């Protein structure tokens, strides 16, 4: 392995390669900030550039730099304007945006940058040590387990929605699952719930729904309620405050540590990736913290911000494991990377480490450099990025709306998608006003197709529902999912009964 590391270092430490890493990270960060362009589309755009470089390791290093940059840029727009352009950063906006609203935008961006850096670096360390072993574990997960894992993820999100909110969160999750079934089914390509409208054939886009759930209601509420917007000078004094106090560092350090490892492990599973890692990370950290801290979640908790950021970057690194060692792309993004590699005459797979060690180790080494570059590039830029919030209300709202609409329109050139966005956005505003949580809807929508596909595949493999009880791992995951939803209300019922008994005794 030491030989490999040396070969990787030799590949990466040349002037050209370092320039490529820096360039990739910069491009990724800036384009990633535009809502609507996620890592997948940015990498797709960059492929021609990468191929003209000619050298496979240089190409892969450029593209992975773009990948990290895009994920980081996506969290910036989640934190500042509540417009997550990437599924992996939806969880970031849960606590990042409230922090920005409370005048802590600079601090939120700093925490995000540091958590991303740690997640990415720890992920790269784990990748070096465990890549071959992890592949074997990942292969143990069959579609039945994936199905159960996603049910677990969904019920975790609903269960952690807060007291009295579980029912509403479940409703929103189911609504998200329903919206996900609109369009052509992956089974037999049958059109479902399209009502004969051609534009619905391809389903509702993820970006459309993300914008409709987060960015639009926020902008509409800002318009409705004048007291929500702060005056400009009130904010500029607060943004400059980037410092994280020692106590805060102490609170988030264990969170980052745990979530880097957990995120990496989730990222290794093909199909799971950064999105599930970030949601799961958020839910787990929420459950682990004390009741006082739990109340902070969703209102600007630093733990709730650090957890998904560390997890999604670690998962991005983790998703390289199946790609590099098995040649199986675990996510859409790595599938595009695989396409680029094949075009460059490199076949990822078990032989890659033996045949072209400089590619394999070069990529891993570039991960360290990429993460480091991201950190030193972004920390000084944060005050300027956060200045965005001092734009006066009359300008900020039209621009947020414009970026929301544009993000949905570019790449599709489809006005129907815009109408869907506006309709769902108005509905989402009503939901938000009445206290229905919107995040479970989006999560249900993202996980819906994966959930259904794995469900269908398991039913086909077992010719029925046998997989539910014949596979112990599936069963354990499903029982856990049920307990997560049922336990809090059971607990409450028991404590209520106890209280009643006590009052009777007295």
């Amino acid at each position, binding site marked *: 392995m030491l030989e490999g590391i040396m070969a990787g270092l030799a590949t990466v430490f040349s002037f050209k390669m370092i320039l490529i890493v820096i360039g990739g990270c910069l491009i990724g960060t800036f384009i990633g900030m535009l809502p609507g362009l996620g890592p997948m589309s940015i990498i797709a755009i960059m492929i021609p550039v990468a191929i003209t470089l000619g050298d496979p390791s240089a190409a892969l290093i450029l593209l992975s730099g773009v990948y990290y940059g895009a994920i980081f840029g996506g969290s910036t727009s989640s934190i500042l304007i509540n417009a997550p352009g990437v599924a992996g950063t939806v969880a970031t906006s849960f606590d990042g945006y409230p922090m920005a609203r409370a005048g802590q935008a600079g601090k939120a961006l700093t925490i995000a940058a540091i958590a991303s850096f740690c997640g990415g670096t720890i992920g790269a360390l784990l990748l070096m040590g465990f890549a071959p072993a992890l592949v074997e574990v990942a292969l143990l997960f069959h579609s039945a387990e994936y199905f159960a894992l996603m049910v677990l993820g969904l019920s975790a999100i609903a269960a952690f929605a807060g007291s009295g909110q579980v029912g*509403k969160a479940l409703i929103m999750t189911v609504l998200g699952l*329903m919206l996900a079934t609109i369009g052509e089914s992956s089974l037999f390509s049958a059109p479902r719930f399209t009502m004969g409208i051609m534009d619905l054939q391809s389903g509702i886009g993820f970006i459309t729904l993300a914008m409709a759930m987060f960015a639009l209601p926020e902008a509409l509420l800002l318009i409705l309620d004048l007291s929500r917007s702060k005056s400009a000078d009130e904010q500029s004094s607060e943004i400059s405050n980037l410092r994280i106090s020692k106590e805060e560092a102490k609170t988030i350090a264990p969170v980052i540590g745990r979530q880097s490892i957990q995120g990496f492990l989730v990222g290794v599973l093909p199909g799971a990736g950064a999105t599930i890692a970030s949601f799961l990370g958020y839910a787990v950290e929420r459950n682990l913290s004390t009741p006082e801290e739990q109340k902070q979640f969703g209102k600007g908790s630093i733990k709730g911000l650090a957890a998904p950021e560390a997890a999604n970057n670690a998962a991005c690194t983790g998703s390289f494991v199946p790609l590099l060692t098995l040649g199986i792309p675990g996510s859409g993004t790595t599938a595009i990377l695989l396409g680029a590699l094949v075009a460059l005459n490199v076949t990822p797979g078990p032989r890659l480490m033996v045949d072209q060690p400089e590619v394999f180790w070069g990529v891993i080494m570039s991960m360290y450099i990429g993460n480091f570059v991201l950190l030193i590039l972004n920390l000084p830029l944060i005050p300027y990025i956060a200045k965005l919030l001092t734009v006066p209300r009359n300008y900020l709202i039209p621009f947020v709306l414009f970026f929301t609409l544009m993000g949905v329109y570019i790449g599709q050139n489809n006005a129907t998608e815009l109408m869907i966005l506006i309709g769902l956005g108005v509905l989402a505003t009503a939901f938000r006003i009445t206290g*229905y949580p919107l995040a479970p809807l989006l999560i249900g929508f993202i996980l819906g197709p994966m959930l259904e596909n794995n469900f*269908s595949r398991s039913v086909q493999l077992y010719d029925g529902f046998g997989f539910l009880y014949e596979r112990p791992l599936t069963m354990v995951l499903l029982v856990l999912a049920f307990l997560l939803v049922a336990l809090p209300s059971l607990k409450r019922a028991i404590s209520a009964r106890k209280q009643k008994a006590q009052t009777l005794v007295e």
Partner: protein
Amino acid sequence: MTLERWLALIFLIFCLVYGYAAHFVMDDALPVFAKFSPVWPSSFPKAISVIGIVLGFMQLVFWSGKHKGEELDFNHLGQYQWKSALSIVALMIAYALLLRFLGFVAATILFISLSAFVLGERNFKVLIPISALTSFGIWYLVDQVLGIFLRPWPAFIYGGA
């Protein structure tokens, strides 16, 4: 009935329509060979429609009213800017409909300046140059630099819509 309950009712009706489509309509279009499969395109929707109906009913009848939203003060609905919010929504719809016809640049300039106008901006010397610069800049970045097609000019320049 509170808005919260109304939304629960709308959700329940949506689930019933969705469930009807999944249980009774969708399978008619299924090709014969597909009917031998143990799982159909309608299986998953059937399952979640049942879950949805149960949840919607529970929310409507038992769970509502336990937890209030904190976003708006329902006792003082008059103090909110309903008029501007509605005009902005109307502007967005107009933007969506006119985007093709007017082209990206013109439609965007109009959208940004008009929505700022609705919100109370009256300084046109600053507003119009800024919106023009943004719309052209974004078009240049997306179309010319990134290579994603966006039609910049009105439809008649291309000879028909």
